């Protein structure tokens, strides 16, 4: 199956390690992806939906024009915004037609409502099949204690993101960690907001969320956290030193992108997965992986 690929803004900006890691994982698994390049930012839940819905309808129309029916994301925020917009487009045909007529027709585009948008995590668990990952695992992550951190946009609103028949989406990270040989560490905030959406509006609250989440993972004994969202990564990793300072504590919790963790299990080394780019040192992860290899 071939996917249109939507990398999002952050994987080319403040989290440049995410893009190559994702491509390497897709190539390793033989997942065919074609980047959809001439499209815009989803609006990330910041822009008014009056503006972002037409932009996102245009992206989905472009996917249809490529002759594809699936769009793969690597960002929970992109995923969440797309899922909600696509839900409106599919369930409100009059609304979709209005957007087509007012915004897309002049480019000769029309969104017919046929595209499914799927995060890499969902692609692996629902289309590729978790069992089919096993032959590619060169380095079992045995002994590595990983706290999954979903964030909010890939978990809610439940009625749209994880509806009946897809409620398994609530445990995909844990299921995947199990296959990779890592140990899941259950932290209380794993499906809560990371605080990034209010970083500018209320930095104090945002930093409190970072210290709460990373601190809880540390208390529970995690070596690192793994997230499918680069915005969660930005706040939990790049802003962790600020959050530590505000909370008056040292945490030092490494935050790993989901494709990086997959890449490590598929035999790529830390440099190939560009772990050196992280703000919080990932040495604890490397040390644990060394132990795993020797034992």
């Amino acid at each position, binding site marked *: 199956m071939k996917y249109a690929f939507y990398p999002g*803004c952050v994987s080319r900006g403040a989290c440049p390690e995410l893009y190559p890691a994702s491509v390497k994982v897709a190539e390793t698994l033989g997942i065919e992806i074609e980047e959809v390049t001439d*499209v*815009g930012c989803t609006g990330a839940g910041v822009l008014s939906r*009056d503006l972002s819905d*037409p932009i996102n309808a245009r992206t989905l129309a472009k996917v249809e024009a490529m002759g594809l029916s699936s769009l793969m994301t690597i960002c929970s925020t992109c995923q969440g915004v797309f899922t909600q917009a696509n839900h409106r487009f599919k369930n409100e045909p009059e609304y979709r037609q209005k957007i087509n007529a007012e915004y897309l027709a002049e480019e000769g585009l029309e969104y017919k409502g046929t595209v499914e948008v799927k995060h890499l995590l969902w692609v692996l668990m629902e289309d590729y099949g978790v069992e089919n990952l096993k032959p590619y695992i060169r380095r079992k992550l045995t002994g590595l204690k990983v706290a999954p951190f979903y964030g909010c946009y890939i978990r809610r609103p439940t009625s749209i993101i994880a509806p009946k028949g897809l409620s398994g989406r609530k445990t995909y990270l844990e299921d995947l960690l199990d296959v990779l040989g890592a140990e899941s560490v259950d932290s209380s905030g794993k499906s809560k907001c990371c605080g990034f959406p*209010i970083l*500018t509006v209320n930095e104090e609250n945002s930093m*409190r969320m970072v210290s709460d989440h990373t601190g809880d993972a540390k208390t529970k004994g995690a070596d690192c956290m793994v997230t499918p969202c680069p915005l969660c990564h930005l706040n939990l990793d*790049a802003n962790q030193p600020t959050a530590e300072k505000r909370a008056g504590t040292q945490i030092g919790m490494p935050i790993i992108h989901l494709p990086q963790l997959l890449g490590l299990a598929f035999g790529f080394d830390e440099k190939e997965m560009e772990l050196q780019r992280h*703000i919080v040192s990932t040495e604890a992860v490397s040390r644990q992986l060394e132990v795993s290899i020797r034992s």
Partner: protein
Amino acid sequence: METTFKVYRFDPENGSKPDFATYQVDLPDSATVMDGLRHIRDEQDPSLAFRASCERGSCGDCALRINKKGRLGCTLKIAKTVKNGVVTVEPIRNIPVLKDLVYDLEGFLWKKIKSVQPWITPREPEPKGEYVVAEEQLAEVRKAMSCVMCGLCDEGCAVIKIDKDFVGPAALTKAYRAVFDPRDGQHNERLTLVSEPGGVWDCTHCFEANGHCPLNLEPTDRLFEVRDEAIRQGIRSGTRNPKVQRHYDSFLNSVKRSGWLDEGRLAIESEGLTNIAGLAKLLPTVIRAIPKGKAPLPYFHHKRPGAEAIRRIIDKAQRSEA
């Protein structure tokens, strides 16, 4: 059905610490958790305090934390929630407890609901007779009309958990009800009011509130609609948080110029180009990010293919808003 009720007990007057008391009840399968609490109070322990009123999910008085989930005690059947023969009943979270299952709603809910002025201020001039409103004009309002102010959406709110001053989804759902009422004459004033610090922009849009509303009113969606209506009216912050507007405008201008987000520009412009103290605050983060190649150079942001089409869409959408 024989059930063990573990009920939160606390009486500040006798100086004891909060604890759980255990009661055995045997009630028909159709019994609700509230039936269980009444049975305990009437038959076993008259000192147990709890609130209840309508018994049909219409008043919100009996919002409780039942088996670790925020629920209305009067509509939840014991059979539906019981786990291994046990039902645990506690007050909702993030709220001062007065006694047992009775909590202080004044600061938690009423003060916040009053703060959004959830009443209609009629448009002038007032009609001679009653206001006549067509049913279709009330379609939006009806999405929030049946809110019973139980506070369960606030109970699950990730922001209120750490910041008791955040106005919260319950009050903002009430604000929605007034914002979209065609009879209201304070539309923009109301939108500015809820855009002040601690208001609609302080929400993370995590959609927790939707999962906690017992009436499925989707409070996060209502909140989004209030925010989008404010943007339509040109209100992108309150009077005391101009950074919110700078952030929105910078985000929009970045997407409008190049099709995607210039993160460096967003950080700088959100602080304000002449806000030296604000810009200085960014420095430690930037200094940490530069050697890691994680600080995208602001303003040198190449246009994505398709940027012109994105700009045309935004221009057109903004014209429709105006």
